[in-house]
């Protein structure tokens, strides 16, 4: 028997695979394709206090091995999400992680305070790394002191464990991670998108209306793996890993790098069945590689004692 279950703060995951924030809406769309109960958990789109219109279109562009997006945290706002999206998810028996965003620390606190009281929210994920909004987001994600302050204040008002989602657009990801760990974060999510741009050579202008966008997809996987490898050795809180996951081998790579669970973003767009297919092929691949339990391989790339489980 292959054991896929992983236990993280606030999250009893029957398997380590969940959709990544912003790539799965609030679940409704993909529930047309399969039973969301198959998922390890669900991370919903970023929630802000007020409704957000997001950025003008075009909001996405394709690049080699990746895509840029600048959605701009469009969401119907805290009230609507409390009254409609979260209750809709109550029909499912999976942990819900709410991705929280804002312009100020108070915004993050306000959203966290309320969503963490919703009966089916198991954890919040602080999006301190959105590259696509002018205020908030990225600043919180590149200064360890500000990130720590934000974390501390949010943790104080949260009823559920707090995961902090780190930005890869920094020189020193380890100090960011340590800062938020010291400030009380229960876990980390990494990585968010790399800031990128694409120019249309016919017009000479950026393809995305917001000009820059966040790069996701297979192209960024090596950066994600490297950062998780570094951070997992430096902190003792668990990491939800993401960035370019397309195959079961990718998941194993994230776990071996040091992640305790993974999130799947862009791959959902390519195949709406991406998550359940990955869960299935993960079991199969683990059997092939003689891995009995996902928890056996977390951090295997750097752990000195790597007895192959039998």
């Amino acid at each position: 028997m292959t054991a896929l279950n992983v236990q993280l703060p606030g999250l009893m995951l029957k398997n380590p695979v969940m959709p990544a924030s912003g790539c799965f809406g609030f679940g409704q769309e993909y529930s047309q394709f399969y039973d969301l109960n198959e998922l390890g958990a669900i991370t919903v789109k970023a929630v802000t206090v007020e409704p957000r219109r997001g950025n003008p279109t075009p909001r996405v562009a394709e690049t080699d091995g990746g895509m840029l997006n600048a959605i701009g945290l469009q969401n119907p706002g805290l009230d609507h999400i409390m009254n409609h999206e979260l209750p809709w998810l109550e029909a499912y028996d999976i942990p819900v992680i709410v991705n929280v965003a804002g312009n100020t620390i108070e915004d993050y606190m306000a959203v966290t305070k309320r969503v963490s009281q919703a009966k089916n929210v198991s954890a919040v994920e602080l999006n301190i790394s959105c590259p696509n909004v002018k205020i908030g987001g990225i600043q919180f994600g590149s200064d360890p002191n500000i990130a720590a302050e934000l974390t501390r204040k949010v943790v104080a008002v949260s009823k559920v464990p707090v995961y902090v989602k780190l930005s890869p657009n920094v020189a020193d990801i380890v100090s960011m991670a340590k800062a938020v760990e010291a400030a009380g974060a229960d876990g980390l999510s990494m990585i968010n998108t790399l800031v990128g741009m694409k120019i249309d050579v016919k017009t000479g202008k950026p393809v995305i209306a917001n000009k820059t966008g966040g790069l996701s997809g297979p192209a960024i996987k090596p950066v994600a793996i490297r950062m998780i490898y570094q951070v997992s050795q430096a902190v003792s809180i668990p990491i939800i890993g993401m960035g370019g996951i397309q195959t079961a081998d990718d998941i194993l790579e994230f776990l071996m790098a040091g992640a305790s669970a993974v999130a799947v973003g862009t791959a959902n767009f390519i195949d709406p069945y991406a998550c359940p297919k990955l869960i299935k092929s993960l079991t199969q691949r683990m059997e092939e590689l003689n891995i009995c339990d996902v928890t056996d391989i977390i951090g295997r790339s750097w752990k000195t004692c790597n007895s192959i489980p039998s």
Partner: protein
Amino acid sequence: MIVEDMSVIEQSLRAPGIYEMTLYGESVNMMTTPGQFLHIKVEEGISPLLRRPISICDVNLEKKELSIIYRVEGKGTTLLSRKKSGDMVNVLGPLGKGFPIHDEDEGKTALLIGGGVGIPPLYYLAKKLVEAGINVETVLGFRTAHDIFLEEEFALLGNLHISTEDGSKGTKGFVTTILEQSSFRYDTFYSCGPLPMLRAVEATTVTPGYVSLEERMGCGVGACLACVCDTVHAKEESKDYRKVCSDGPVFRAGEVVL
């Protein structure tokens, strides 16, 4: 909507850079509404990474075949154009809300206004309208006479008016040139084409109608919010938007900001 590997039955060049492809598969059963689209993964693997949205042009439910007509633009459509009979393409579809056909309109007249690669979805619509006993009057715009496709097919279904930008065939100018010159009688209009054309069409028409939009897409199913457009009532910081992929691509004229 499902995901299916559909097999290419045939592919042919309809005009310079414009291809028609016939696909076979079980999902054709679900394709009864004109104006819906497919989200096509042109190649396995990462290049290109994303799916490509292409409208359904015609459907043969009995043969489980559909056709699409598309213009070669970039990487995805170039690779698509190289597919040969027997190859497979991975299709997610049918997606979106198509053109509504009102059965009570039997005997009335619909005006179809299409430009360029906005024309294909109007063909299945025209067939469905005729089936429902609705008269079809069609206005199609092309760049030049060379670019014309689906002419005979539309001509069989009702009156057909063609404009070309250089006047090499039909009326010289745009579809709106025809709309302005002629005084069509119609009860509903249906339009698909480039944004400036849709804007001009909305400005020229009076009766209720429907427009079909294009927008860059991620998921194609309403989850990523890549493809939104504002409703005409949207205010700053409001949530009053529509998703082209799942609320559209067809909207009531006047519903969304073009």
